[in-house]
């Protein structure tokens, strides 16, 4: 049918490959045992998203996306991981992340959630000739797994990284769905992310200063 008439283009192949890398990195974050490696994985994931921006810019001829790819590389691959790694160096405690379930259980759950996201989002009636539907499903899977990361990990660094990778998932979706999004809007999104990172950093520092730990187990006073 449509797929037969339009032979699979290099565009959709490339997009799907990179989207798959992003999802696999998300899984690696899920099972990473050190906060540091989690942050490095985030950096790698952002690199993949920036590469996708370059790829879409080249194949779809959207010049603005080169600028976006450059900015996203500087901010998400270099600046944000550096800020978080410096926070980790300063705090010097429990570099190992903590989690509520065993690693195997978490990864199994993540697979279930990712499959759910992939098929539900991939099955949406979102069609256009240039749009690779599997890549959109992969973006949905990344977003759902990032939620799982925030829910199942119980330390502030993992939760913050979970939020940052949620943003990567949304970036992925926006590259697939809305490559033509005006540059000024994209830049505003990125700038907002940077501000959010600074606020997360401040709060992680405050939390560590009060409780001498990065675990969220102490954050259970407010209920009801």
């Amino acid at each position, binding site marked *: 049918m449509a797929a037969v008439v339009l032979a699979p283009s290099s565009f959709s192949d490339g997009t799907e490959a990179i989207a798959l890398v992003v999802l696999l990195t998300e899984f690696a974050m899920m099972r990473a045992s050190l906060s540091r490696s989690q942050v490095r994985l985030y950096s790698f994931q952002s690199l993949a998203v920036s590469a996708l921006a370059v790829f879409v810019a080249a194949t779809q001829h959207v010049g603005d996306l080169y600028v976006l790819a450059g900015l996203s590389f500087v901010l998400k691959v270099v600046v944000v991981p550096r800020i978080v790694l410096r926070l980790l160096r300063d705090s010097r405690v429990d570099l190992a992340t903590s989690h509520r379930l065993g690693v195997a259980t978490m990864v199994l759950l993540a697979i279930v959630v990712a499959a759910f996201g992939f098929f539900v989002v991939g099955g949406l009636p979102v069609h256009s000739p240039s749009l690779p539907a599997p890549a959109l499903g992969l973006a949905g899977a990344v977003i759902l797994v990032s939620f799982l990361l925030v829910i199942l990990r119980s330390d502030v660094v993992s939760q913050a990284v979970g939020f940052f990778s949620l943003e990567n998932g949304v970036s992925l*979706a926006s590259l697939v*769905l*809305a490559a*033509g999004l005006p540059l000024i809007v994209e830049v505003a999104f990125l700038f907002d992310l940077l501000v959010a990172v*600074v606020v997360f950093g*401040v*709060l992680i520092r405050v939390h560590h200063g009060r409780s001498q730990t990065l675990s969220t187990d102490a954050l259970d006073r407010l209920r009801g």
Partner: protein
Amino acid sequence: MGWDPIAILVVPFAVGVACWWAPVNLGKALTLASGVLTFVLAVLLVPARITTALSGWLRVDALSVVFLVAAAFLYAATAVFAIGYVHPSGDPSSAARYSRRFFAGLNLFAWAMAMATVVNGIALLWVAIEVTTVVSALLVAIDDTDGATEAAWKYVLIASMGLGVALLATVVMYYAGSTVFGNSYELFYPKLLSGAAHFPPEVVRLAFVLAVLGYGTKMGLVPVHTWLPDAHSEAPTPVSAMMSGALLAVSFYAILRFYQVTAGAIGPAFPREVLLGFGVASVGLAALYLASQRDLKRLFAYSSVEHMGVLAIGMSFSAPIAVVGVLLHVLAHAAAKSTAFFGAGSVARRFGSTDVSLIRGGVGALPVSGPMLVLAVLGLSAMPPFGIFRSEFLIVSGALTDPHEAVAAVLVVGVTLAMLGLSWFTSRTMLSRTAESTPRGEPSAWIVASMAIGLGALTILGVHPPGQLSDLLTRAASELGARR
């Protein structure tokens, strides 16, 4: 009039930056001046039809003005309150640093909320609301207690995840538009509305649900409200007042912008059903939670969840009178809830706590702000002659003409349950006998003044809203598709 929205963006920002360096008293004076000026600028926009500025990036229509007036009113009233309320203890230099940071944050918070109402397009709207999150999260954490740290962390994490979903909604809506406008276009409201009728229905539906889920997290709709009671109870009271009265409303404004486009694309039936579900859950659960609170500020926080539910339910009725009621409710809730929080601040200054079991005889100990707090709670419970009575009356009568009797019954029962919870705790804490040992008298004339302002506005909205305001609400309702 194009200068007016620009001034609204420049003044609070400049004052916020100035407060960071200026001496504390100058910062307080500047904050008050900026609050009053912003409110005047917002009121000047009431009679205008549509104001645009900065080559279309700013656009103020009747719907924006309703929310802008609510935010600016909160800004001005909170500025008055904060001058009397903020008295950090400790050595003078750290106290001065606390005050400088606090007033800088307060102004920037107000600036971000005003920005959300005047920018044009769902993308910039998202940016502005994200800015409100980061500024207010720092303000929640500013007291540096265990509770404040915990509340700030939960708030920033949950609200940011929610806004991540809202960003996805924006992207999906952009995709819906790109099927009509081509790959590259600006997400301005008139542009989206002009093409909405040709957007693919399934995609618009997805975008709307994501938007309600995402912005609903910030608005405090059940079941994504979980950060709200913590943040409202642990934040400094002026911040709680602004969050409850304006921040939640601004998030509702974002949902309404998606509602407009969705209604233009697939008709209003689907978005109404979605809002009805979230609204009923919010009113019902909040009414039950209200009965089991032990902290005055937490009590008012759950009351906010209830009122946000009322807004969502109100939008699910097709009668134009209900939509007018919803918009009036935004203004009335801002006035009533800020007065209640200001009263809680007065109580906290007098009794050193907002724990319900530690407060006795509030009216005796606080001769002016005590009775005003009781009146504010009556106002929140939709008693005449206050504004919330009028707005909820409009909403319920809209439901009865619709006809949606079952939903109207649920709404009335929920609101009544909420009133029981609110009045039970208020009568226990405020109307009981005052212990001999409790000092009497008002902690600050500024607090009394701020409460008088809030209560005055609430009464005016209830007794006789100014003609221009009624006209504004009718125009805003027709922008939302409600036509007689």
